[in-house]
């Protein structure tokens, strides 16, 4: 379990704050974040696009039509003929997405009407006007007052005028066309704004017919003014619907307001109205609510009675010109909803949808119809909000609790996986089921949370590193100063070199060190120090000093190195090997308990020997004589020992103030490596070795010499299999020669209880130590352990070792008994002589 640190607690707080912030923005639907969410929405919407299958066609007044049929606006009669044409094609519903909110202003028609009125209303005064056509005749006629032919002519004129009036009266033509088929839906346009406060005060019956009363509280978009088609058209139309398109804050159209509330009346959208009519439903059959339903159709809506549009492609789209010229087969339009809409540049408003730009409003309407008829909706299901909240909570907890505990690399991977899973899930829900789940907020929380926590951690570790660096600089300065104070200038320089030399205080320290070197006449060192300072720019007078010192020092440096070289040459030439007594020292073999061991050669009998020397450094000056005396005494005693299993000592002596001991050179290794679990020896071999040691000890003890330091490292196995015990009595020399304030002792694993208690020891102590070695050789483990010297000592003196047969179950009982007897705490309970032990051991083998 990791420790919970202060920084982790602040991570928790940070994570929770981030989560709360996300929740806050989420519930607030904060603009910039919504824009991001919309971007994601569009991305997903483009994955949903399929080709439209609804019975809808759009006839577009496009550039081509305008180029061929003249400038917009076209005479309303044109449109009327199109309506009639479509009616003849047996179109189910025609949506005429062109607002005719004023009567046609036609100068010719006005003139004709005036003429008709004047002829009909006041025949006399009308005469001169009529006479204008053929002045002389009519004037005469009027003057002569011949009613019959005159009246006749007048009536002809009137008829002709009426004819032309009828031809010129586009409004009536269109009104007739509209009412003829009873299948045209006309647009309404609303000026969105706060409600006027009036309640359906003076709406015409046509408008009332095409609106419903809101059920309960209504949150539809309100309008403050309405632009309806002229009553002539409205009365003949099958239905009326609003054509307002509302884009989101980012200018993209994603939804369709199915109703607009004007003076507490709800007006359906153009598309809804078309669909209703197409499916033979009446507006009054609609039920409002969470879903707008009619018949079996169910339109999910969210706030403001809006429906999310699922944009599809390939809505049948024809040029007005082509249709008028009958280039399109009538079957295409049969029983369909046909929308006549403007799409030429500069005429209709172009919309931006999630999947395309420059979409004419007719296409948007067609898409809505397509969605409703196919029941293909994008919805925000009820559970979406809950899901989003849960995921925000989960991600927030992940950021707060999990990221601080795991490594940056792992948390990156986990975060990425979480993000991918979440995004894939939302995209899948959207594309496959049309469920819109807002993916943005949880994803953002995850991303931002990860970045914040990880970068904070990074900054913290950087700070830690900085602090540690500062620490080490401080340490180095302290140590350097201290060394300098003690006159250990080289070590001081080493320390100061580890400090940043750019620091003024470090420069000062170095400078003083340089001066110290100069005082000691170590000019080359001083120069090195000054040059080190010079790396970071000039400082005080270092450049002068370097110059002065290099000239002064060169000769010295040269002299020194020259002398050294010469000395080496002399050595090589004469090939004088250093000697100890009569032995030539060939090389150093290693360091032993008492001092360095050399490989020596007896030149007289050409025998190689091992030379152990007594290290004086650890011995106090006033005790050296005593120690030396003891050394010689012990060596003498050991030298008297002559046994095949004891390393033979040839000679002791003193030369150059070094006491040495020349002994048999052994070619082999000690037992230490056989105490490792992986290369334990077979039991018979162990018995052979230990019994050999036991007989060696028996011999030594009989001669009054106690080894005192029996351990695997002191028992040698020669390459020919011989067993030799080394270093008899040396332990005693070294142990009692310790200074008053001694050095820290090594691990006394092989000490006997009586040795630890500081009592007088005899040969039976060696047998205890041999017992420890035997135990270790058999099991690969030490019988007594302890995490500190004190515990170990306690264990040796008081606790019994683990039964050896638990560690080596195959061991014969007899052997186990021997080990047990050897490790007895009570001296009397052990083997009393090495011979008894050797006999018992060998008996085991039989």
């Amino acid at each position: 379990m990791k420790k919970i640190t202060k920084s982790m607690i602040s991570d928790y707080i940070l994570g929770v704050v981030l989560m709360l912030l996300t929740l806050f923005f989420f519930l607030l639907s904060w603009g910039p974040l919504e824009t991001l969410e919309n971007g994601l929405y569009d991305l997903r919407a483009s994955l949903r696009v399929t080709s439209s299958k609804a019975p809808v066609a759009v006839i577009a007044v496009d550039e081509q039509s305008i180029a061929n049929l003249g400038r917009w606006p076209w005479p309303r009669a044109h449109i009327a003929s199109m309506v009639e044409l479509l009616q003849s094609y047996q179109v189910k519903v025609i949506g005429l997405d062109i607002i005719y909110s004023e009567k046609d202003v036609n100068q010719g028609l006005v003139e004709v009407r005036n003429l008709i009125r004047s002829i009909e209303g006041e025949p006399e005064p009308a005469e001169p006007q009529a006479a204008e056509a053929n002045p002389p005749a009519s004037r005469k006629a009027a003057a002569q007052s011949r009613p019959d032919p005159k009246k006749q002519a007048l009536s002809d004129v009137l008829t002709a005028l009426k004819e032309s009036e009828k031809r010129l009266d586009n409004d009536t033509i269109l009104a007739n066309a509209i009412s003829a088929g009873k299948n045209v839906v006309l647009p309404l346009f609303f000026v969105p704004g706060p409600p006027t406060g009036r309640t359906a005060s003076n709406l015409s019956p046509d408008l009332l017919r095409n609106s419903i009363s809101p059920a309960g509280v209504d949150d539809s978009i309100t309008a403050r003014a309405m632009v309806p088609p002229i009553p002539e058209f409205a009365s003949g139309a099958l239905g009326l619907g609003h054509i307002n398109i509302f884009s989101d804050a980012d200018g993209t159209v994603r939804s369709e307001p199915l109703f607009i509330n004007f003076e507490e009346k709800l007006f359906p959208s153009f598309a809804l109205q078309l669909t209703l009519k197409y499916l033979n439903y009446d507006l009054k059959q609609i039920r409002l609510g969470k879903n707008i339903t009619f018949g079996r159709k169910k339109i999910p809506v969210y706030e403001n009675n809006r429906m999310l549009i699922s944009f599809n492609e390939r809505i049948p789209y024809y040029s007005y010109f082509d249709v008028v010229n009958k280039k399109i087969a009538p079957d295409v339009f049969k029983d369909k909803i046909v929308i006549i809409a403007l799409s030429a540049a500069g005429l209709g408003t172009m919309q931006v949808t999630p999947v395309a730009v420059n979409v004419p409003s007719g296409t948007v309407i067609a898409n809505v119809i397509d969605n409703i008829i196919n029941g293909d909706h994008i919805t925000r299901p009820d559970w979406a909000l809950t899901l989003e909240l849960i995921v925000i909570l989960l991600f927030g907890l992940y950021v707060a609790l999990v990221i601080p505990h795991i490594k940056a690399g792992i948390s990156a991977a986990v975060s990425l996986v979480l993000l991918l899973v979440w995004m894939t899930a939302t995209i899948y829900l959207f594309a496959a089921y049309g469920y819109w789940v807002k993916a943005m907020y949880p994803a953002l929380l995850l991303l931002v949370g990860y970045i914040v926590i990880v970068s904070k951690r990074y900054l913290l570790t950087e700070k830690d590193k900085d602090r540690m660096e500062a620490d080490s600089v401080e340490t180095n300065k302290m140590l350097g100063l201290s060394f300098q104070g003690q006159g250990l200038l080289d070590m001081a320089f080493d320390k100061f070199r580890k400090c940043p030399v750019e620091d003024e205080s470090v420069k000062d320290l170095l400078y003083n060190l340089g001066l110290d070197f100069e005082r000691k006449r170590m000019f080359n060192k001083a120069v090195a120090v000054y040059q080190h300072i010079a790396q970071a720019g000039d400082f005080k007078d270092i450049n002068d000093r370097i110059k002065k010192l290099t000239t002064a020092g060169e000769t010295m440096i040269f002299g020194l190195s020259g002398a050294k070289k010469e000395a080496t040459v002399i050595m090589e030439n004469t090939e004088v090997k250093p000697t100890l007594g009569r032995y030539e020292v060939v090389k150093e073999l290693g360091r032993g308990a008492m001092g360095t061991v050399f490989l020596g050669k007896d030149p007289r009998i050409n025998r190689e020997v091992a030379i152990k020397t007594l290290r004086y450094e650890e011995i106090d000056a006033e005790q050296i004589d005593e120690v030396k005396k003891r050394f010689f005494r012990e060596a003498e005693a050991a030298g008297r020992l002559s046994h095949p299993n004891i390393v033979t000592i040839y000679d002791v002596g003193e030369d150059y103030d070094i006491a040495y001991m020349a002994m048999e050179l052994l070619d082999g290794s000690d037992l230490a490596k056989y105490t490792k679990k992986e290369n334990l020896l077979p039991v018979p071999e162990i018995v052979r070795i230990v019994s050999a040691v036991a007989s060696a000890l028996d011999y030594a003890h009989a001669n009054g010499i106690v080894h005192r330091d029996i351990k695997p490292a002191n028992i040698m196995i020669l390459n020919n299999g011989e067993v030799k015990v080394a270093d008899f009595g040396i332990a005693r020399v070294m142990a009692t020669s310790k200074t008053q304030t001694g050095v820290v002792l090594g691990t006394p694993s092989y000490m006997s209880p009586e040795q630890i208690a500081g009592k007088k020891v005899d040969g039976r102590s060696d047998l205890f130590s041999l017992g420890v070695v035997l135990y270790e050789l058999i099991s690969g483990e030490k019988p007594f352990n302890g995490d500190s010297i004190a515990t170990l000592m306690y264990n040796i003196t008081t606790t019994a070792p683990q039964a050896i047969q638990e560690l080596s179950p195959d061991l014969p009982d007899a052997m186990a008994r021997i080990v047990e007897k050897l490790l007895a705490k009570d001296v009397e309970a052990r083997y009393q002589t090495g011979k008894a032990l050797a006999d018992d051991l060998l008996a085991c083998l039989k």
Partner: protein
Amino acid sequence: MNLTACGKTDQGLVRANNEDNFYLDEKMGLLVVADGMGGHASGEKASGLAVSLIRDYFQGPQKIIGSPDPSFSEATNRLGCAIRLANQAVYEVAQSSPQFKGMGTTIVAVLLTGRKLSIAHIGDSRAYLIRAGSIDQLTDDHSMVQEQVKRNLITQEEADRSEMKNILTKALGIQPEIEADLDELTVMDGDILLLCTDGFSNMVTDDDALDMISSAQNGSAACESMIDAANRNGGKDNITVVIGYVWKEKWYSALMKFMEFFRR
């Protein structure tokens, strides 16, 4: 609280050189005693290096290096830090040349800040507190026999006679890193602190030390008599004693000083 201190070190009767070192800083409230070990002159070097490093540390910015132990006050942590640095210094010097190989030192240091006394030690040099006529040892020796006594392997009497009395389980400068044993204490007016090396504590009993300190006229006389006593009993090792008197500034002390000025 204020501290008045004096200290004295003596070679003893057997040793050829003095490997002990001590340092007093009454203003800082710092007392340090070190007992070096190692062949030739290296013991002297080790104790000198350790003491001077602790001195330098407290004369410098006293920045705590490394992470402090929250269970102790800042002052105690500073003391611990100084000893850590001293250990590093001694260890590095010991590694630097064969001449210094294996050298080390014991250390005992106390630091008085306000009413709080910080105590730190490694090895068998000791700190004692003398209060209301009784003497208490503040430190536990890091020695083999002390461990044995603690575990009831041997009695205190056996320990005093033990052959391994000189074997330490912990010393400064032997390992690259070491933590001193830290302790804290609230002092009272009239407390006396005694810091000494084993050259004193092995030669003179605690009660004798108490008698000598309480009967002495002043600090230096006490030190004098204590070292004499140790030498009388054998003086087998270097002897160092440092005595610190803890006293509170009285409200009338300024007046007393003023009077004293006239008396002169």
